[in-house]
Each structure stands twice: as C-alpha cells, then as structure tokens.
C-alpha cells in the first residue's frame, strides 16, 4: 500500500499540462458589468440593432434573477463586477488564411496539440479556434462552403447570415431560461455557428477549440448548430485554460436544432484547468446545453468527457419533439482532488415513439464530489416513448463522494422507462490480477477505468477517443491508494 501512496504523491504533483499563458496583447473591456459594457461588446462587434436590443433585454432580465443554489456544489459567491466580459486577442483583423495568424497565437495552439496547419493538412478536421471567447481562426471554410455548409464564428455569421442567426438564436435556450443563460445572452462575445443545408452530410468532423487566456476574464461563448432536413453533422469541442490562483467563470450556451431526419452528434472533451490540489483556482464551468429534435426521425447525441474544471455544472438536454426522434447522452465525468461535478442530462419526450438512452459514468477520486442529476420526462402525448438510463459511479479513496439524483416523470402509460445505478470501487482482486501479470498499479487503474468508460469512449470520433483516453489516465494518476 505504501508504494501506492508514493506513486499517488508523485503523480498528483504532476502539473496541469495545458497551464501556460500566452502573452498576446488583448483588447479588453474594463472590469464589471452594466448596460454600457453590453453596448460596448455589441459595438465592438459591429452588431445590428436587433441583437443589441436582444442583449439588453437579456441583461435586464438577468438583473431580476437570483443565482441558483440547489445544485450539489459549493463555491464562494461570484462577484460579477470583478470579471472582464470581453477580451479579444489583438490585432483583430479579418484573416483569409492561417498564415496570417499571429505567430504567437499559432504557437499556443501548437502547444495545445491542435496545430491548425497540421489539422488542416492531415486529419481533415475543420477547426474553429476560440481564444478568450473570440474566434481566431477557422480552417477548411472554403471547402465546406462548396457544399453550402456554413461553419464560422458566430460574430461572422451575425454579419453575413443575419437572417439565420436571428431565426435560431435563443430558439432552444431562450435568454430567460436560467441565470447563466441570461448572463450569456447579454455578454456573449463569440462562438461557433454551423449550418448544414438540406440533404447535406457534412464530409468532415467540425471542431472548436476553446481557450481562456487572459486573467480575470470570463468566457461566454455561444454555439449554434442548425441541421436542416436529412443532414448530418458531427461536432467536437475541446477546452483548456492557463493555471491561475483565482477562479474563472465559463458560462456558455450551446443550442442545437435538428429538423426532419437530421442528425447531430456533439462531442465534448472538457479539460479546463481544475485548480490545484488544495482546490485553489480553476474554472467554474456553468454551461447550458440543449438540443431540440424538432423534426420527425431526427437524432441528437451528446457525448462528453469531463475531466477538468474546478466545478462542472451542466446538463446537456434533448427535447424530443418530432415523432420517432432519438436523444442520446453518453458521459464520463472524472473528478479528482477538490473538484466538484454536478452533471447529467434531461430527456423531454414530447413526440410519439421517441427514444432516449443515457449512459453516465462518474469517477470520483481524492476529495472530490461527483453527482449525476438527470430528468426523464414523458409527456402525456408521447405514445410509446422509451428510455433507458444507466448511471454508474466508481469511487477511489474514502474521502470522495458519488451521488445520483435522477428524476423520472411519466405521464403516459405506453412509455417504458428504466433506470439503474450502481456504485462500486476498483476491486483489489482486479488490481492484483493485473499486478500479477506485470502491470503496474498505475497502469492497471488506467486499464480498468478505460474499460469502465468504454461504452462512452466508443461514441467519440477516433481522434478524440485517443485524446480522451490519455486524459482519463492523466486525471486519475495517483488516485489509487
């Protein structure tokens, strides 16, 4: 056992790999939040009047709300006046190709392992890189445009496709939805916009990389994906941030719209800075993610691997409105040290023959707290709705906690809803078996955890699955003891 403890100490002292800060001159707003800041952001982005009014409306609504406190996480009160709401890498000129990007910036993304050049040449993944909530580069835009696919930053979309943005922005997550959605609606700075026209199958994975760089800033990006009839898109999202002692707020909104026969696959590998061993610093990841299957036979699938953030608090949801639509949620949430996670999903069955599947794997180590909170609601008219949920928790160490809060509301008798949950630990016999065959304790844990999460990792696109597996191993290093 003592050897295990030694390994534990060694590894938990290993640093957050992505914790560097890039010295890029940034154009930022003064600290604090008021109507002038909202107007400042809007003006900076040269936005049309309707969007400014929309933002102001959201801001005024936000003022009437109080911060929610029902979740199973603890954090000191956030001072919303101590945050910089807008920070853009400077100079912000319109880029035509990757070569024109600030070399410093490019180096940052290289360090992160998303070399934009390389990605473009080799992997065939179109990347939209967002730093401090401003989109800095989008690859493969031209090639996608040939098929009529729009993949660009949201601010660009506001300029070039205002009618689409106006139609869908806030249609799934209204600005009045919740405290953080209202805040985001007021001050969102950028994000990605994806539009897949009728009958088009997006030929490559679309990907956005988010990074918070400047100190004291909050990241408030907004992603909007619209898939028209019979289209398909797979979208990936990755996140990192520098190491800092103070906590930073990340309050994003993601909206997905799937029309008749359309399919959206949304994958997230979230690796925001989780704070140090004592829980100092780290990102507050308070995100509203929701998709609507508005058409018949449509499908939305959320896959998430959550390893970072000092607090993760989000529930990617699917509103199954169209008949025969399908919602899926696959999640691995890992918490170590002082991390807290309260995450899960909502599946709202409205249409007939709608199906949903939830697979949630929670892993808690150190002194962390990991909660699954989910809602499965079958409305009165949702004939033959079907849901299966499985929430498993794995505990490592005796100081962490694993919690499940499922809500199951069934108002139609033709529905079949199943939920099961288990809590367990890695068996000593399993470790022993590996040790005996010459696999070190550390590697054995990684092996077992990967097996435990396989069901979810299998859902990820290949490039991401490899990264996610490595990330899991790093996040859990040293948590055996």
């Amino acid at each position: 056992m003592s050897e295990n403890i030694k390994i534990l100490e060694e590894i938990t002292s290993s640093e957050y790999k992505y914790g560097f800060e890039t010295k890029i001159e940034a154009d930022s707003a003064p600290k604090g939040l008021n109507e002038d800041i909202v107007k400042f952001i809007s003006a900076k982005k040269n936005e049309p009047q309707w969007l400014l009014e929309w933002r102001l409306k959201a801001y005024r609504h936000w003022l009437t709300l109080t911060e929610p406190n029902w979740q199973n996480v603890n954090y000191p009160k956030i001072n919303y006046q101590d945050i910089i709401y807008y920070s853009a890498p400077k100079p912000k000129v319109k880029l035509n190709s990757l070569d024109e990007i600030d070399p410093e910036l490019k180096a940052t993304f290289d360090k992160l392992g998303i070399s934009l050049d390389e990605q473009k040449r080799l992997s065939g993944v179109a990347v939209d890189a967002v730093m401090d909530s401003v989109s800095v580069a989008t690859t493969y835009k031209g090639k996608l445009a040939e098929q009529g696919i729009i993949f660009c930053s949201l601010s660009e979309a506001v300029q070039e496709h205002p009618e689409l943005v106006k139609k869908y922005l806030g249609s799934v997550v209204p600005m009045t939805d919740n405290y953080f959605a209202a805040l985001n609606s007021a001050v969102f700075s950028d994000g990605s916009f994806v539009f897949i026209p009728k009958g088009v199958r997006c030929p490559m994975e679309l990907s956005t990389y988010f990074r918070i760089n400047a100190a004291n800033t909050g990241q408030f990006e907004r992603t909007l994906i619209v898939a028209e009839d019979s289209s398909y898109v797979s979208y990936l999202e990755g996140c990192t941030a520098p190491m800092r002692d103070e906590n930073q707020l990340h309050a994003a909104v993601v909206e997905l719209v799937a029309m008749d026969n359309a399919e959206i696959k949304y994958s997230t590998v979230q690796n925001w800075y989780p704070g140090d061993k004592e829980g100092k610093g780290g990102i507050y990841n308070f995100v509203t993610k929701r998709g609507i299957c508005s058409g018949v036979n449509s499908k939305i699938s959320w896959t998430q691997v959550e390893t970072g953030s000092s607090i993760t608090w989000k529930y990617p949801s699917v509103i199954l409105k169209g008949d025969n639509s399908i919602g899926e949620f696959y999640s691995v949430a890992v918490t170590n040290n002082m991390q807290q996670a309260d995450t899960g999903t909502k599946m709202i069955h409205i249409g007939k023959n709608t199906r949903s599947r939830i697979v949630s794997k929670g892993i808690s180590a150190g002194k962390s707290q990991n909660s699954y909170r989910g809602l499965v609601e079958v409305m009165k008219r949702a004939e033959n709705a079907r849901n299966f949920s499985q929430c498993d928790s794995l505990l490592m160490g005796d100081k962490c906690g694993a919690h499940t809060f499922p809500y199951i509301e069934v108002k139609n008798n033709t529905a079949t809803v199943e939920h099961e949950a288990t809590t367990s630990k890695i068996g000593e016999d399993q470790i022993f078996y590996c040790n005996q065959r010459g696999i070190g304790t550390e590697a054995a844990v990684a092996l077992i955890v990967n097996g435990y999460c396989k069901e979810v990792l299998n859902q990820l696109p290949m490039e991401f699955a490899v990264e996610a597996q490595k990330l899991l191993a790093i996040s859990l290093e040293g948590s055996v003891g």
Partner: protein
Amino acid sequence: MNLTTTEELVKTFNENSKKLSPAQSDVRKDAISAFQKQGFPGRKNEEWKYTNLAPVLGRDYLIEDTTTLNKKDIDGLLLSSLEANHVVFVNGNYNKELSSVNADEPIVISDLSQAGDINEYLTASSITLNDSLTELNTALANGVVITVKKGKVVSKPIIIHFVGDGRKGNIFSNSRNLFILEENAQATFIENYSTIGSNAHFSNNITQIVVKKDAYATYYKIQNDAKSDHVGTTQVYQPEKSNFAATTITLDGGIIRNNLNIRLSSEYSEASLVGLYMVKGNTHIDNHTLVDHAKANCYSNELYKGLLDDKSTGVFNGKIYVRQDAQKTNAFQSNKNILLSKDATMNTKPQLEIFADDVKCSHGATTGMMDEEPLFYLRSRGISEKKAKALLMHAFAADILEYIKLEPLRELLDQTILDRLS
C-alpha cells in the same frame, strides 16, 4: 377552521397551550413559531415538488378532543377482526375505553404528556428531513408511548387504529407516538387509517420507533380508506445492532404522503423497507424514504411497487445516504411501477448519496405498462383479458405481500386485493 393560512392554527394552539405541562410547553412553543414562520410546504420546496397539499388545505376542518363513537363503530373497521392488541385513536387522541390490550403482554402504554425522559424525541429536530408539518405536529399532537420490556416478545401484534370521526364535519388530527423496544425485545406494530362518517379526515402523524440492542421491530402501515388524507412521518432509530422491517400498503386514499426515515447508527444493523401502492380514482400516493447509513457493515434493502389506475398519481422518492464511516455498506433499492391508464402519472426520484468507497449500493427504477408477452401467453390459453390482467396484477402485488410475515394480515390484504381485481 381553514388551513390555507397558519393564523387559525396558531390561535388554536394558544388557547390550548395553557393546559400544557411546563416541561413540554417550551418545546411546543418553539415548534409553533417555527411552523408559523414556514407555513405549509408549497411545491417550490424540493421535497414537495410532486405533492400539492392545496386541495387538502382548502377545506374547512374541525379539531375535536371528544368523541361519541362506541365500541360497535370500531368493530366494523378493517383489521378489527384480527386477533391483536387494539389501540384506538379517535381524531388524533388516544381513547382508552375503545382500546383493548391484553394485560399479559409485556408492554406499557403511557400518555405522551405524562411520559418522563422522552424530550429528546419530542423536538421536531429529532426527525431527519423535518418540515413545517413536523413542527405543527410537535406543537399540537397528543399520543402515547408504548414500551416493550427488555427481553420480551409481544405475542400478538399491536394495531394502532387512527380513526377520524367525520360525522359532523371534516377532521384535522395530529398524533405523535413513540414505540420503544428495549434490549432484545420483539414486537409487531400495525398502523391502520380509517374514517367513520361521510366527511374527510386529514391526519398529520408522527411515529418514532426506537429499536434498541438486539431488538427486532416489524412495522406495517395499512391505508385503505378513500376519505383519508394523510401526511405521516415514521422515524426509526437503530442506535445499536438491531433489526427493523417496514411494510407500507396503500390501497385507497385521498392525498397521502408517507415519510419513512431510518437511521442505522450502529454496525451490523439491518433494515428492510417494502411498499405496495395499488391506487385508482384521484388518489395521490407519495412515498418518501430515507435510509441513513451512518456506520459500517449495515444492510438495507428497499423494494416499492406500484400499480396506478385512472387519474391516480404516484411519487417515489427514495434516498440512500452513506456516510464516510459507513464502509462495507450494502444498500439496495428498487422501484417498479405499472401505469394502467392513460391518465395515471408516476414520478420517481431514487437518490444515492455516497461518501464511502468500499460499498455496494444500487438502485433501479422502472415505469411502464403491463408486459404484453405474459398477457399473450395467458390469452393464448383461453383466459379472458380481464382475468389475465387480474392474474398478472395479483402476481405483481404478491412480491410485496410475501414480505408480510403475519399470516392473518397477509391473507386479509390478499383477499382485499383479489376482491378488487375480480
């Protein structure tokens, strides 16, 4: 009296408070002011999210101390025919004349207001997950303390009949009872709810059960009365290694909320919680359970099954709490529901909160309609649809009835269920 506001209740309390003994009056005064501050729980309250008391609170009620009911009235109630010790409460007050307890049984029944050393159980804070209704009960309720003597076995079950005398008007009653099983004692308690007359009976009850070292308590709660609305909390303390088994059967009622909280605060204790709700009409049945594993090596098993017909609503909220010290805990929970009609609703919230790593905990919940395949099997053998369904429902219920060790009670309930299905 109207319950939509707290005012009239507080006034009633103040009128009665002069009669209280000084030892208890402080506890009760604190409780009434706490209740007054909170009011009745609304649906904003997470624990009351699915249960709306407004239709119950909207009626006019009488709080009555006296009754004209006689022995004959009581003899007509469900379970009265069982061979047992019958303890009768009318309108929330213990009625010695109507009760019949075998003098040879090793039990002592004393009035709550006369009982000594029980103040620790009297405060509202002695209830985990207490709410304003607990405070109200603490302020207003009367009841008894039943003590089972050390090392003794009570040979016949103790049936507590909560009767509402609804002949003059709607009755609001509050009762508070404490059952203490001394070391190595054994007893079976049955709570039964009924109403006489045509008006409604809203009972707000608390039962506290202390199961001391090596004692074994069996507890049944039977609800089969259309005119009963009920909010009840059963708080079980297992301070030392002991065994407790609860069975809650709800076959009829208005709006019913059963809270069952069990605290396993010593190693090697065991608790079993099972429940069956088979409701129709507009009945609302809410089962709230909490099993608090505070110490290591304890075992708890929970199984609740429900059949919901017509416009009935079911709620199951089961929480298992495993504290950091409670290593080697085994805790299982399962909730299975069948919706028999288009308008029935089921809300399930099984919760696990676990702070220890070396545990085996699981929960499962299912809601759906009756399985087609067994139905087809029976029909293909010439059994009518109605009969086949009845057979399957009976089998579904039988899973829970099997837990009832008291044979006459099991037979009686089985017959009640069969009558309803035919």
